[in-house]
């Protein structure tokens, strides 16, 4: 990658809205592993795959059987499959390259979230969190479901309603339980309505450990960082908590089993689970907004786990808070006045993508500033003034050092032009698997009588295929943000320097209806 020549001084988190994508009403989004493709589920039951590099649509997955809104999308590990859950209680597994449906399963209840098993490239198991019951493991090939336990009653396994379960906001006892796989998929981490994180071995359908969250309020979201080292929970008490995962990434289940053995001495099973749990997770940080006390929505980690973002769950505002892992709030991103419904961070780049209630997908990125020293090879940017110490012979008529300055590079050194360095950001990739990084781009044939126009794709890029056509800055009727005065394609006849200008206003962008 080009990491060596990118200026390291720029902050690693996004600042402004760079672009937005429009296609129907999108509800939920997910990046593939490398962030080259973005899948979005729409309210009409279709799933759109965007090519994130060109910001154009790469593929559409349409199913005539499914017309209900999509509630979640999930990629398989190497990007060959997508699992889509919809409001008509169905789970559909798609093959990405061919665009064909593989299986479709109907559940008892609408799944709010469905996650494919992260360990294999063609997974058959998935974890679904239904609307108001315990999370289930679904075998997509067999169509069978296994309900996971979400509480630890003293005597019976399974769901036993507890009378001491008081929830402050009045929601019914078994409000959606959040759950996720750990990094290699051997354990399921579930957060229940009593404010407990349970580590469940789904193969034996047993709770193996339990970590109580202080305050005991309902856990709404639970998610791992990409490297599996940190776990995030979002609770009803308006706090986001980060836990450090003490189990090893690989073979976490085995390590858990080893822990269990050493605790045999304790009789009370609940205490035993808690003791084991304390060896699996420790609380690292808590985030909350003490002033506005807002509820959070769709919190997640950045790709490298260094940053945590959370969206404000208040209606009518589109705010994204960015914290560093140490707990300091570094930025608040404000978008147009529409509620935020989903949020993801790009796996590699400092880019955040958010979905608003109106169905638009906003892409937030860093504000690009031209690096002027890039234009002059001999110049170097300094952070602050430096005292210049001249060489001994700098002002000599024939300086000594000039003569040997020619090349301090040994020209006889061997140069390797073929070996490729492994990309460290993806160190866990199994090289034998072929990853799907991009879908082949097939050019749409030009329609003969419209040689001058290009086919309108749904991103907001302006048509500039006409040679010499001026920028269409006039507000187009379907609501373009009017301060995108410089869309990336303008043929700026007068300006001297062309770059992708973005309006840095963070105070909310006015939106033309």
């Amino acid at each position, binding site marked *: 990658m*080009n990491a060596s020549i990118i200026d390291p001084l720029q902050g690693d988190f996004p600042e402004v809205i760079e672009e937005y994508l429009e296609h129907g009403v999108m509800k939920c989004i997910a990046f593939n592993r490398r962030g080259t493709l973005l899948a979005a589920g729409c309210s009409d039951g279709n799933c759109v795959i965007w090519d994130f590099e060109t910001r154009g649509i790469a593929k559409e997955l349409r199913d005539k059987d499914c017309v209900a809104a999509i509630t979640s999308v999930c990629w398989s590990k190497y990007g060959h499959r997508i699992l889509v859950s919809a409001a008509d209680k169905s789970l559909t597994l798609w093959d990405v390259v061919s665009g064909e449906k593989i299986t479709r399963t109907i559940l008892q209840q609408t799944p709010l979230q469905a996650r494919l098993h992260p360990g294999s490239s063609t997974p058959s198991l998935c974890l679904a969190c239904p609307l108001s019951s315990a999370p289930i493991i679904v075998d997509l090939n067999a169509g069978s479901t296994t309900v996971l336990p979400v509480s630890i009653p003293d005597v019976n396994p399974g769901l036993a309603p507890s009378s001491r379960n008081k929830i402050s906001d009045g929601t019914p006892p078994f409000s959606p339980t959040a759950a996720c796989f750990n990094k290699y998929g051997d354990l399921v981490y579930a957060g229940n309505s009593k404010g407990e994180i349970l580590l469940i071995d789904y193969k034996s359908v047993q709770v193996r450990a339990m970590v109580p969250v202080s305050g005991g309020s309902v856990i709404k979201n639970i998610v791992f960082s990409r490297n599996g080292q940190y776990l995030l929970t979002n609770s009803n008490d308006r706090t986001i908590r980060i836990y450090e995962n003490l189990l090893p990434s690989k073979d976490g289940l085995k390590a858990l089993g080893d822990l269990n053995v050493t605790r045999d001495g304790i009789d009370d099973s609940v205490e035993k689970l808690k003791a084991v749990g304390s060896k699996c997770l420790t609380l690292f940080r808590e985030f909350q907004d003490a002033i506005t006390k807002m509820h959070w929505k769709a919190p997640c980690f950045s790709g490298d786990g260094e940053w945590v973002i959370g969206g404000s769950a208040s209606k009518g505002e589109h705010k994204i808070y960015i914290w560093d892992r140490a707990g300091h709030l570094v930025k608040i991103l404000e978008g147009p006045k529409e509620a935020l419904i989903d949020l993801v961070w790009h796996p590699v780049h400092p880019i955040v993508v958010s979905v608003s209630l109106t169905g638009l997908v906003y892409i937030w990125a860093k504000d690009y500033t031209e690096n002027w020293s890039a234009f002059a090879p001999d110049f170097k940017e300094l952070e602050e003034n430096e005292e210049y110490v001249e060489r001994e012979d700098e002002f000599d008529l024939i300086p000594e050092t000039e003569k040997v300055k020619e090349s301090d590079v040994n020209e006889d050194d061997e140069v390797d032009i073929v070996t490729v360095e492994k990309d460290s950001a993806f160190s866990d990739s199994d090289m034998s698997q072929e990853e799907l990084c991009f879908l082949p781009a097939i050019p749409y044939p030009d329609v003969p009588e419209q040689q001058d126009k290009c086919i309108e794709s749904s991103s907001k890029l302006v048509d500039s295929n006409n040679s010499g056509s001026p920028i269409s800055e006039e507000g187009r009727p379907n609501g373009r943000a009017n301060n995108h005065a410089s869309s990336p394609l303008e043929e700026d006849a007068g300006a001297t320097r062309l770059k992708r200008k973005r309006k840095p206003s963070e105070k909310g962008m006015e939106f033309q209806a």
Partner: protein
Amino acid sequence: MASSGSGQASPPYRPYRHLKTLRGHENAVSCVKFSNDGNLLASASLDKTVILWSSSALTLLRRLVGHSEGISDLAWSSDSHYICSASDDRTLRIWDARSSAGECVKTLKGHSNFVFCVNFNPQSNLIVSGSFDETIRIWEVKTGKCLHVIRAHSLPVTSVHFNRDGSLIVSGSHDGSCKIWDTASGTCLKTLLEDKTAAVSFAKFSPNGKFILVATLNDTLKLWNYSTGKFLKIYTGHVNNVYCVTSTFSVTNGKYIVSGSEDHCVYLWDLQQKTMVQKLGGHSDTAISVSCHPSENKIASAALGNDRTVRIWFQDT
């Protein structure tokens, strides 16, 4: 020769020999390229056409007609299905290489002067083009939209190339500078040369994307490490001070640099030793373009107006 250190004995160099001369163009041939799967060879010419040849049988398959002016450059998509040609009629055309009719799928308009150089990115969803109007344009293959217009240089852009993962573009220009751009934002990341004395006629990334091969119109080829900004190797002996002669890496059997030259020959240098190992003569005009087959030890070269042929050279086994 094996790419070993200077101390070890390496097998003797086996010279390339002339295999066949392909005639078919009616004017100077400006560019020749093997497809990435090695099955086809495409040549572009000032006679406004692109000819597709079978690279195994070395026969003419199809002629792609459509441009209204001569063609300066062409590029293959990674899956070898599409060819993009850059022409003096200020447009780029995307052709379907598989269709027997040789139809043009798309025309990309936007440049205001001759389009001189073109390349696909490895994912083949973007095309980069450089033009005499001093700009670089990045196009989306699927819809033909121009995604970026970069005011790159102060004189015609002679060469553009994507690196291995498509995140960087290197561009060379008659203004003597070689610049590296970030694909996603269109911003300049680095300038390699600022030498106003010699125009840069060609620039290309090495197969692993770490080095850039730069040709300048003072009969010199240099291999630069762009992160450190220093050049590591110099190759000389050929003649190049007028035309934008292309050069390339040959990696199928030892590491060489291959380049055309204005003295009508094709030169090969050992990459590490920088010594010229062979000079292939036979053309009767400037050898303007060379291309190496991706898997076989074959080189194709094309020459200008007096010659108008494409010559195929292969290495003795």
